[in-house]
């Protein structure tokens, strides 16, 4: 039988300050970059035109650029997309401009005719695989909706966790998830991924996934708090994280396997989504252990609960054995003895 991390007894919480440093080192530069340069929003959000073309031979972006320049289409961005002979042409609408609805389609038609002039009109020379033209109004609506979705999911989670656990757990879980959103934004900024609706969907899935993971650990904390009356929260948290460690490794391993399969095999359109999901699994796991758990400890210290165990100590108690040794008596008997 393969056993990974069975009976592990690592002092995770001790390393929390290192973890803060690490995550700050990732988030702060990424977020600064985000504030300065913003994100690479897809035309779904900015409004504009996207055209994906497949040419007979790999003509290179320069050739397409000159074709568009000749037709007077200046602000388009050209990118090779997947295969060597496929390109994506994006013309975003300027944010400040008062753009007339319908002008985006005119751009699409103009790009088509510019390509026809430069590459030859027949479908043997080039083929338009995909066109998207989004007016400015739709883009504005979508931005609002994405924000709303994240906001509401936080509220709902807070309420649900407050009912099922207590508000301190809920707050810690939501804060850890907020951390995940920040680090994912930093990740998206570093890789300069295009933020499309689907990527926003990935971020929202990450919210669910990260919460899911935090809840698994908190569920164990809840149980252990009942079981071991003598230990302080520091020890309980460490114990719970260690006990759920094999599950974390297995679940994240399998999920990561599927997202990496998506990154490598699912094609160019889904790649940003799959990359964000892969990172989300990483950051979700990290934050459950190093952000949510210590945060719970601080919250308990600041606003102590009934038994005020969180306030007792922020350091390991040392000699008390944490994991119950294998015995025929079972855990119930063991916990009674502890009381």
């Amino acid at each position, binding site marked *: 039988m*393969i056993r*990974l991390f*069975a*009976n592990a007894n690592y002092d995770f919480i001790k390393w929390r300050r290192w973890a803060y440093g690490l995550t700050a080192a990732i988030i702060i530069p990424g977020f600064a970059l985000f504030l300065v340069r913003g994100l690479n929003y897809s035309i779904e959000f900015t409004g504009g035109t996207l055209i*994906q073309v497949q040419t007979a031979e790999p003509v290179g972006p320069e050739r397409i650029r000159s074709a568009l320049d000749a037709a007077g289409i200046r602000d388009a961005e050209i990118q090779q997309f997947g295969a060597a002979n496929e390109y994506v042409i994006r013309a975003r609408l300027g944010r400040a401009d008062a753009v007339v*609805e*319908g002008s*985006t389609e005119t751009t699409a*038609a103009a790009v088509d005719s510019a390509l026809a002039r430069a590459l030859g009109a027949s479908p043997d020379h080039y*083929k*338009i*695989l*995909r*066109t998207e*033209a989004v007016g400015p*109004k*739709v883009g504005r609506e979508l931005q609002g909706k994405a924000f709303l*979705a994240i906001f*509401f*999911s936080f509220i*709902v*989670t807070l309420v649900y*966790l407050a009912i*099922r656990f207590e508000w301190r757990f809920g707050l810690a879980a939501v804060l850890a998830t907020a951390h995940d959103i920040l680090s994912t934004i930093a990740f998206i900024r570093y890789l300069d991924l295009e933020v499309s*609706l*689907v990527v926003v*969907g990935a971020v*929202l*899935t990450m*919210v*669910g*996934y990260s*919460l*899911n*993971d935090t*809840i698994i650990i908190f*569920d*164990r904390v809840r*149980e252990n708090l009942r079981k071991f009356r003598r230990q302080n929260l520091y020890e309980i948290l460490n114990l719970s994280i260690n006990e*759920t460690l*094999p*599950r974390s490794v*297995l*679940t994240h391993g*399998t*999920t*990561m*396997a*599927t*997202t990496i*399969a*998506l990154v490598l*095999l*699912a094609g160019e*359109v*889904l790649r940003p*989504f799959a990359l964000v999901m892969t990172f989300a699994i990483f950051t979700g796991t990290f934050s459950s252990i190093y952000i949510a758990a210590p945060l719970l400890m601080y919250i308990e210290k600041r606003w102590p609960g009934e038994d005020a165990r969180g306030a007792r100590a922020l350091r390991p108690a040392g000699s008390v054995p944490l994991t119950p040794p*294998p*015995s025929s008596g*079972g855990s119930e008997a063991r916990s009674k003895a502890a009381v």
Partner: protein
Amino acid sequence: MRTIRSRLIAIGGLLVLAVWQLIPTNVTQRVRDPATGRMKDTTIRRVPINLGLDLQGGIHLALEVDQSKGPVPDCADAIQRAEKVVRTRIDEFGTSEPVVQIQGRCRLIVELAGEKDPARAKSIIQRTAFLEFRITDMKNLFRDALPEIDKALRRAGVTVAGQGAAAASVTQLFGTDTGKAKGKAPKGKAAAKDTTDLNAPGALSSLLFQGQLPGEYLVPEEQVPVAESLLARPDVQRLIPRGIELRWGTEVLSRAGRSYRTLYAVEDRPIITGEYLQDAKATRDPLTNQSVVNFVLSRRGGRIFERETGRHVNDYMAIILDGRVQGQPPVIKSQIGQRGQIELGAKPLQDAQDLALVLKAGALPAPLTIIEERTIGPSLGQDSIRDGIRAGVVGVALVVLIMVGYYRLSGVLSVAALALYVVFTLAGLAGFGFTLTLPGLAGLVLSVGIAVDANVLIFERIREELQHGKLVRTAVDEGFKHAMSAIIDSNVSTALTAFILYLVGTGPVQGFAITLIIGIAASMITAIFVVRTFYMIWLDRRPDMATLSV
């Protein structure tokens, strides 16, 4: 033992239900006939999962009423009329399952799968609706011309394809009062004598059956493309009597197990057009309990209509929107002025409402603007499906490998449950009629990874209990019991997030959220219930089992 049996029955029942949803069924689709380029209804067998536009290729359009030239007071009403107009035009697109739906208050979504020419689609949709009233061919001029047309067709070498049973002349299908038809038949044959084949039935007339009123003909659905191509021939066009034009109807009638399209011979001059129409409302006549449509014309329109209807009392009036006759032409009972009423008899009120919409659509106040357009080429869609499936297969294979390698026999149980999970999820998509999109496919692959989480939680718990020295049976029971709260809390919170995603998101994001929600439900059923049952059977067979392969 008893509980095992009832559990197995429940699982079997669910499985049968799921497989039932996925059995390829006969689906009627309107598809483009490659030979003629026309639309026809065909029945095909396929697995009833709808593929999104991003997977099968096509055009997605979002339209709004153009308010740039002054605001439109009631845009919800305007968009309803626009929807009606677009629906009547949809046949021109050659799309198998067109989607026309109103989103929010005043936005119209049009999705045309497989359509490749966005410019054409847009021009058809944005064209202003044209409504006209025309008197049907009361003197049966067209029918009288049919023998000549048949003769011309025979000269041109057009023969009848597989219509052995049909007579040489317009056949009466329902035995209604159109007496003249029979008298004309021999004449048609006589006229055909100078051609080579004496007994050949008329190429065109054999396709037409006399309808219930003058100028109405029924064409068997499968013959519509043939009839259309015959009528489009220049030599046939020349022989259609002066002052008469042919218009197809929107209605499909089914009689004696066959479906027929209506074809109307109408006068080429409309007695009035939609520009004079001011309002139309559907109501139920309180006295007769009949569905009626009341309409109001402008003052000038009223004068024209009064003059025309005065000349045509007892004639039938076809209501034509965008070149298609809407419903069955009503009879003009008396002279009508500015206000008129169309009686629909015992037909449901819905029909009256539809007709009122048609009348109002003719007076569409403002054109539609396209605010969003996406065109996805069919090859791109196929690539997406292929890549998605490939990634899915590899991902699932990895999950299976990890689970069986790590948990051995218990892992095999979870993989069996995973197979059920995939079937349940797909059945959920098919059963609720949701559309599978590219992000949805990604959600499906991802949820396979997440689906094993519940099993992992349970197996780890069982391992812990075994380590504490519990007996196998107790360890399994305790493992399931203790893992339950974590499974439920974590899945419910994920489902809540997905639900919000569904409420707030649009199109592709909704597709993703739906697959995720169905996936979560299916994974909870399989992990908690199915795997538990497998364990029960296993332990039942081997009651004295000392070690568990987990």
